[in-house]
């Protein structure tokens, strides 16, 4: 039964398809460049988004007075 399964024939049909073409094709190159670019943008985004959050929270904490200098200290430790 399995010998009758047309795997090879179907395989050739599938191999001709692959998304936007096979290796070294224009489509593959475009996808590679797009993916690489998105990766770089994501790195930039990680920095921007986090920096915004941290700066906002640091400003809020300073303004709240929660971190004001204590009136008495615990000793000569830092």
């Amino acid at each position, binding site marked *: 039964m399995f010998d009758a399964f047309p795997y090879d024939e179907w*395989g050739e049909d*599938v*191999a001709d398809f*692959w998304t936007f073409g*096979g*290796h*070294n094709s224009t489509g*593959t*190159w475009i996808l*590679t460049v797009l*993916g*690489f670019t998105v*990766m770089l943008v*994501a*790195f930039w985004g*990680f*920095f921007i*988004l*986090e*920096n915004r*959050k*941290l*700066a*906002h*929270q*640091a400003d809020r*904490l*300073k303004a709240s007075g*929660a*971190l004001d*200098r*204590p009136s008495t*200290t*615990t*000793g*000569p*430790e*830092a």
Partner: protein
Amino acid sequence: MISSLIPTWLAQSPTIEELDSKLALDTQILTETFYFWTVVIMWLIHVGFMAYEAGAARRKNIMSTAMKNILTIAVVTPTFYYFGWYIYGCFQEGWPKSGHASPDAFEGFCGATAPWSAQMGPNLQDHVSAVFFLAFLLFSWTTGSIMSGALIERVRLSAYLVLTAVLGSVVWILDAAWGWSSGGWLTTRYGFHDAIASLVVHGVAGAFAFGVLLNLGPRIGKYTTDGLARTFRGHNTHLTLMGLMLIFTGFYGFYAACLVIQSTIFPGWLNIYGSPTTLGAIAFVITIGFAGGFTGGWFASKGDPFWTLSGGLAGVIAVSAGADVYHPSLAYLLSISGGMLAVWAGGYIEKKLRVDDAVGAVAVHGVCGFYGVLLVGIFAGGYPTGINNVPTSFGGQLMGMMAFLPLAFLPGYAISWILKKMNLLRVPAEVELEGLDLAEFGQDFYPEFERVPEIIIEPDGREVESAPVLLDAYWQTNGTPKTPVGVGERS
């Protein structure tokens, strides 16, 4: 009746060529299946690192710690796909090429590692390249996770992501090309032998992390003005220990993935250099390595739970380089020494060098990684390594160590220095005091549990409420913590 069927059966029997073809295909699919499952098991390493580090973090930093491990996957995967794998395939002879005769066991491998190649996409004729790539990718994540624990509770997530991408997709994979491949110049010329990646994964990640720690500095309040170390209590030691056990489980996948199996081409298992070994031999060593490491860690730390389990990891790392060569009894003895070394090195790094490595990663992975390669030079000298059959030697192992120490340390130090100068390495001191989770995620991650005062352990062993201590430390540095590393009066 039956005799009349025989001619029919014979007519239907496959030819030798057809059987060869089917056998080759079956073997490829066996290889594909094998590496696929090593990848699945290796995921547990990352589950483990996440739990381990999150448990070691204080309650206010749980999710910011775990998020580093999660986003390691988000950044190392594409960077490794776009250029990391290419470095492994194309830089084995060094850069620039040394010109020496280095037989290429896998001809054309370099071209097959480019992201636009036929092997790096769906390909019905290639059952092996994709899973082999994935196994290496999981090693890359591991290097990032090793560093991640050391930096917790004060590093910016974004800074960590850049550092881990460099470590996981450039630094470690370049050292793997040089010393953990069939055509690597360190192996083909000097017989460098690091079968299960003591140095190329663990040691290098530890050295890179050490470079970063020098610029990152300790957590606020970690050291007194006299330079004595306080101890921060992690919020959940059970979670940390469970994480370590998951890492250990994943290590079996890691060990297995370090071997090469393709039985129609090779007669059996090979190590990464193309030298024969068996899966059983390395499984023997890893298991007895844990036993020895736990034992060494227990005695050196006088029964400390964290260091007992970390000692198990250190023990295995210490014997990984020679796991394909060592007799189990030798592995047991050496792993005991590795577990003890990690404890002592961890104490030295924290108390003498005053480098705040939150989980002891530099000691466990860095120091024991280098130690493991050194041990091969001592106990497995003469073993013919790689496709040139160059005898392993103490000098060859030293050559690898001398090549990889700067290769790992300098990029870690340089990139973190640049980030520090741009004020992008460390979170603001105010955020560090309050905890990173509120700033990054706007929530506490144990909402149903009442908050109790955070405790800090003074150098003399007293447990005191941490808030006044940390606030005091914050003000003594004018809100800009620059606690110097390795400077100051010692008592």
